[in-house]
């Protein structure tokens, strides 16, 4: 469904993303992990049209979308959420979602109705008339998700949708994400919460210093020495292996 080929982006000499390549097949949940500052959000921005790549290409459903503007890409079915959530603070939850619904629906009344439906899918049905600015962080994350859903996407890019949530909230959102996939939406998510990555994703990509360093089944990838070193530093894999050896003996 999504093909990213050799995408690169530099800012004033610093390479934020270098020659990243990945594929997201239809109907799957794919995850993108990596230490902070690895360039994951930048990659999302490149895919969704918020940044223009210096080189490389992005193909969505066979169509090249590389230099399109974000709203065009959204209209074609690829929508992203933001790591730092961006609610329409002075509007109600329902109005927030309705704006997104308007991408597919012209009539105001219908959009507002659709908003209520989508809100129910993420568990926000009780907060419809609340001001978005008054929501808790968990509420805002759900709102971010609901808005994206209201655009009837084929591919959903979720950027750290679980950041700031407690264990219960994470559990709930994992279920919601699974139900979204079951409804036919392909999902590509950036996540730090490893249990979620493990339990949700079919395949994982690992980014470090802007470059892809590994990809594969989540379990295999997270136990690869290279990936461990990316997160914990040089030599960490050996130290861990050595410690494990000590306990074995």
């Amino acid at each position, binding site marked *: 469904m999504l093909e990213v080929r050799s995408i690169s982006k530099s800012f004033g000499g610093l390479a934020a993303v270098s020659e990243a390549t990945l594929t997201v097949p239809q109907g799957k949940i794919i995850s993108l992990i990596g230490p902070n500052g690895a360039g994951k959000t930048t990659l999302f921005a490149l895919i969704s049209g918020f940044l223009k790549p210096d080189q490389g290409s992005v193909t969505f459903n066979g169509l090249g979308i590389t230099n399109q503007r974000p709203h*065009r890409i*959204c209209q074609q079915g690829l929508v992203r959420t933001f790591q730092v959530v961006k609610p329409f603070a002075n*509007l109600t939850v329902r109005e927030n979602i309705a704006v997104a619904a*308007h991408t597919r629906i012209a009539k*105001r009344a219908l959009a507002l109705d659709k908003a209520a439906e989508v809100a129910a899918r993420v568990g926000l049905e009780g907060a419809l008339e609340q001001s978005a600015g008054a929501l808790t962080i968990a509420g805002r994350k759900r709102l971010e998700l609901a808005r994206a859903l*209201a655009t009837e996407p084929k591919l959903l890019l979720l950027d750290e949708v679980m950041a700031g949530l407690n264990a219960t909230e994470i559990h709930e959102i994992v279920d919601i994400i699974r139900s979204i996939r079951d409804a036919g939406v392909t999902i590509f998510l950036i996540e730090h919460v490893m249990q979620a990555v493990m339990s949700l994703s079919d395949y994982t990509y690992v980014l470090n210093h802007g470059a892809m360093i590994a990809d594969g089944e989540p379990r295999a990838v997270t136990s690869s020495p290279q990936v461990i070193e990316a997160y914990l530093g040089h030599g960490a894999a050996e130290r861990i292996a050595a410690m494990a050896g000590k306990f074995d003996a």
Partner: protein
Amino acid sequence: MSDRARLMGWLILIAVLAIAPLFITSGRWIGFLEMTLFIAVLGQGWNILGGYGGQYSFGHAVFFGTGAYIQALLQFKFGWSPWITLWFAVSGAALVGAFVGYLSFRYGLKGSYFALITLAFAEAFHVLSRSFPSITEGGRGVQLALNQDPVQAISTFQFNFAGPFLKAYGFYYTIFAILLLTYWVTWWMERSRFGAQLVAIRENEDAAEALGINTFRVKMGAICLSAAVTASAGVYYVQKYLFIEPGIAYGPTKSVEALFAAIIGGVGTVLGPLLGSFFIHGVGEIAKEIIGPVFGDRPGVDLILFGLILIFVLAFVPRGLAGLLEALWKRKVGGRNA
């Protein structure tokens, strides 16, 4: 506040505004109402782009002045009927809106930078209108011929020499009609898909873009609509005063009054500019009554007050008078339900 309650409130307000002047015989107070409604229309024009769209313009006079000049010049130079020239005035201003909008939005100007560039455009038009007397009559200004034939009052859109009713109330009902039309357009916009997208852009442009809104196109639509509404006030001005010159058309006064009314009254609401205009003009009248006898009839008093009120509102009442009313209504309704 439910839409039904809002609509009821508006109908009452409209009825009052429609009938009240008939009970007023003092020309001064009719003039006061005319001026207030005039600024209310000007303010609504600003409100569409600034209040709903979040793009604060400091040079809205550029639209007022263009509308006024086109209205005046087509009559002055070609003798066209004012009822025809007004269409050109409004669309001409919309074109200027498209021009300013295209440049500003294409190059991503927002916030204070957008405010400043609109100021620069207003100044540029000011200088241009002063420098090409062959086209605009320059600093001399455009003086339209006064129609003294009561029979021609409506066709020349001038009521100074008309039958008794039109003479007293013609201009009032003109600006009232313009108010009704432009406010109805704003009311409709608020409830449309376009309005929802515009407000989303104001709240968070990136998120709006990510959710499929063509932010450039929506902003362009907003600035053109805003320009057209503002120009309608310019059309009224020319018909009422039969005179326009560069300072009046493109000077800072109109730009500032437009944003005063909208911000003090409540940005992003239909009622805001009307409330704001009534409030500041009312305060202005009171101030003149009080200060007049002490200091004489010196200019500047009302604007000092407007400036102070603006600062006060920005600091303590960011939602303006309309926001206050909304809060009071909620408390009343909530109290009954409790």
